[in-house]
């Protein structure tokens, strides 16, 4: 025990003597979480508050195009810029000046009305309702194409959202036109409202909760756990560099001649770096609670969850420390440990669901994400932060994190013993 404590004390001294390194260790993760949350919150606000400029080429100039025009305008998402030439619009999109151009084809209104009238007449004739004796001959009406030009730089999700929105709008116009055609055929009074054209099925978003206080997810509630975890795992960099440095300084060689086990040496490092990761996490929470509201970001809500959050942070920190100890044991130089450590953490974060939710990943990646300790940590954080669960529910995740720590540390010790057997 005294050797372990002396080892931890030495690590603490080494850390505190490097003020610059210490500042980087604590400030960079804070900067990261502030920047990421601001960017994500900003993008969200951009869509909601700042209108996106879009080009509209209206070759139809009819009732349908006017409805599309009105709907786009009232959606509050777009600022419509009329453009008469399709080629010119395409060029502007290619140049990246605008992100989207909508081309409404010629005779869209006319052909849509004709097609609907033809269909309605056909249906009414079947029921023997149509009074007209002579049905006009069937005219071949080609389906109309609304072209959407996207800036290649726009993201897939943005394109999908726009396509789905336009599709919904066109469907609504078609439905309304059908109702209108029926009304004109059936009723003598064109102002009489026979059909209720408003949507019958509406959506209501409900966040389930187990009888406890409901938590409204926002960019902060998602970002703080995700990026705290990312920062906690970044501890493997300073930890592995610290170990490589000791090898290069010769102090590690000297220690090998001492009657002290490698587990004790690693234990000292683990205690201090675990403490560092917990301080990092505490600072993240402080920033989320106190700083975010001051810079117009949603405030972090941790009410009643603090102890459980620290339990998750502790076990995530253990897993990160285990990985750092293993990397530091195997790496021979800082050129090996630093780039590998940084890249590996980014990979773990990517497959762990820090950037893209796991459910949105391809099947192979979803399977792989089950192997990422960051995924276990993130699930545990989300369980506590957003699903408001208790200790029992997070046991599987913290169990996996503990096993990961034990496995990585055990491998490090075995590797060291095999490498330095005498």
């Amino acid at each position, binding site marked *: 025990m005294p050797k372990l404590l002396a080892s931890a004390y030495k690590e603490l001294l080494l850390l505190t003597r*490097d003020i610059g390194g210490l500042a980087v260790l604590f400030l960079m993760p804070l900067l990261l979480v502030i920047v990421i949350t601001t960017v994500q919150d900003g993008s969200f606000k951009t869509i909601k508050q700042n209108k996106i400029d879009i080009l509209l080429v209206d070759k139809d100039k009819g009732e349908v195009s006017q409805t599309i025009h009105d709907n786009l305008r009232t959606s509050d998402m777009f600022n419509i810029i009329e453009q008469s030439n399709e080629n010119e619009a395409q060029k502007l999109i290619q140049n990246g000046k605008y992100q989207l151009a909508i081309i409404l084809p010629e005779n869209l209104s006319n052909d849509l009305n004709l097609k609907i009238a033809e269909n309605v007449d056909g249906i009414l004739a079947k029921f023997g309702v149509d009074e007209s004796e002579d049905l006009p001959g069937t005219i071949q009406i080609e389906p109309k194409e609304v072209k959407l030009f996207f800036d290649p730089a726009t993201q897939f999700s943005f394109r999908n959202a726009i396509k789905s929105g336009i599709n919904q709008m066109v469907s609504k116009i078609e439905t309304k036109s059908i109702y209108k055609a029926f009304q004109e055929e059936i009723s003598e009074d064109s102002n009489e409202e026979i059909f209720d054209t408003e949507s019958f099925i509406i959506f209501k978003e409900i966040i389930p909760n187990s009888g406890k206080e409901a938590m409204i997810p926002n960019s902060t509630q998602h970002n703080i756990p995700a990026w705290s975890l990312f920062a906690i795992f970044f501890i493997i960099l300073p930890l592995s560099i610290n170990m490589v440095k000791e090898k290069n300084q010769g102090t590690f060689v000297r220690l*090998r001649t001492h009657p002290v086990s490698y587990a004790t040496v690693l234990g000292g490092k683990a205690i201090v770096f675990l403490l560092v990761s917990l301080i990092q996490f505490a600072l993240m929470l402080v920033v989320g609670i106190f700083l975010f509201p001051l810079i117009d970001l949603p405030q972090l809500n941790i009410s009643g969850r603090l102890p459980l959050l620290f339990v998750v942070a502790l076990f995530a920190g253990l897993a990160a420390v285990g990985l750092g100890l293993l990397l530091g044991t195997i790496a021979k130089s800082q050129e090996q440990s630093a780039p590998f450590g940084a890249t590996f953490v980014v990979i773990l974060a990517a497959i762990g669901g820090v950037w893209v939710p796991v459910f949105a990943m391809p099947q192979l990646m979803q399977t792989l994400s089950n192997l990422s300790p960051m995924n276990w940590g993130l699930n545990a954080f989300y369980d506590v932060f957003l699903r408001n669960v208790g200790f029992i529910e997070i046991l599987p995740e913290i169990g996996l994190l503990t096993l990961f720590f034990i496995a990585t540390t055990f491998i490090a010790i075995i590797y060291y013993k095999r490498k330095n057997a005498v």
Partner: protein
Amino acid sequence: MIQINNLSKKYKDTDFYSVKKLNLNINEGEIFGLLGPNGAGKTTLISMLSSLLKPTSGSFSINKLTYSENQKELKQLIGTVPQEYALYPTLTALENLMYFGSMYGVKKPLLKEEIYTHLEILGLSKFSHQKIKTFSGGMKRRINLIAGILHKPKVLFLDEPTVGVDVQSRNAIIKHLEKLNKNGTTIIYTSHHLNEAEEFCTRVAIIDHGSIVVKGEPKELINDQQGAKHLEDVFLSLTGKALRDYA
């Protein structure tokens, strides 16, 4: 005290033995010098004896203990002073020594007393709270020595403990080692300073190409070599004047 039998070491990716079937007995209380040109195998031998390298073949025991069977006891018995400084530059002299002393299991009050005694003898007590990175080469060498002797080892291995230091520092180190030896520590050291070894050692072995060329008391070796006045003459006549460069 130390019995070495047919000890060999061949590094990976080399086609020669750094230490080749070496046999040697070192008695308790001796100051034994391992001398030889660069690449002769001195550091390799001392590294094997201090548990830093695994021999390719052969065996050795220290006080009848072996690393394979009594690693912890043996490590407690020996002290090692490596050639490089092997200290934490951002920690003070006291912090470095407290740490390495603790790793030998020396209890805190005794350890502090021991540290200050050695610092006083080696003229470093007023620098105890200064960071190692501010120390001169000679000061670092002296701290490096203290770090290896805080647990009062029975056997002390020193790899070129006086390399790159001024005469004053060298004198202080040698005097301190002589004192330790008088108090019962067996000393095995490597050096390129042949005059120092001639004065300091009770016995020396000249090693070349991984094998012992000659061993004995310095005076005895000088007398046995025709025309030799100093150990350096014996050394040059046995190992030759050709430069020893190893890449």
